[in-house]
């Protein structure tokens, strides 16, 4: 499971997590977007 997260939280995401992403949102306003993980609930595969 940790190896899977290592793949998903790739360099692209980690860069966005540390240095934000600039996105022109659907309402036409360009924002600095700070991705933050608020909740994580998971049932781990049986060991």
């Amino acid at each position, binding site marked *: 499971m940790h*190896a899977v997260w290592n793949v*998903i939280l790739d360099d692209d995401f980690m860069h966005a997590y540390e240095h934000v992403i600039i996105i022109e949102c*659907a309402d036409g306003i360009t924002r600095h977007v700070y991705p933050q993980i608020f909740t994580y609930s998971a049932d781990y595969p049986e060991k």
Partner: protein
Amino acid sequence: MTRETALLDRTIGINTTPSHLLPTHPGSTWQETVVRIPVPDHQKHHRPMDAPIPHLEVPGLHHRSVTEIIKATLTDQTAAPDYHHLPFRQFWKRKSGAVESVCDELYSSEAFIQEHEVIQNLPPEPGCTLERSVCALMLWSDSTHLASFGMASLWPIYLLFGNQSKYSRSNATRRTCHHVAYIPKVSFCIFSLQVFNLTSYMPSAP
């Protein structure tokens, strides 16, 4: 039947979902990766001359870029009216005059408000006047059985946005739940055999 087929077409996204978001599309943003898990082999691996740590390779992890999902959601016109960039507090005034704070959504929670204040107080980039917005990621994962009979199952990882109301997040037709990955399953027999081949040790029972 015709109606069901039309519903299916709509659900899988013919004419509605950008085709690159579908896992089967050649230009899709889905990728397949081999997961490499380091396996203990009762040997030391401190010094440069030591043998490398053996890795068990598990193929078949299908996943998407989380940043792509964030970009797609924030630029999506249909999701925009329900997306909260700014947090707020809600209060309820009782008839007796007592005021109570209302706790319901993630974007009106103390945790979100605190995080919003933290990023507003960060030192600005020189010359930058852009708004700053917290993107609250909510991840979850659990095994999903696909049928009432048989063993067909998937192990997905989902992503939802705390900036959207829980009422739209719990509504399947609003498509607020994004699939990030499908985790491959490895049977314990195959796992044991592969670990034994790599290390000459059997792993302990599950």
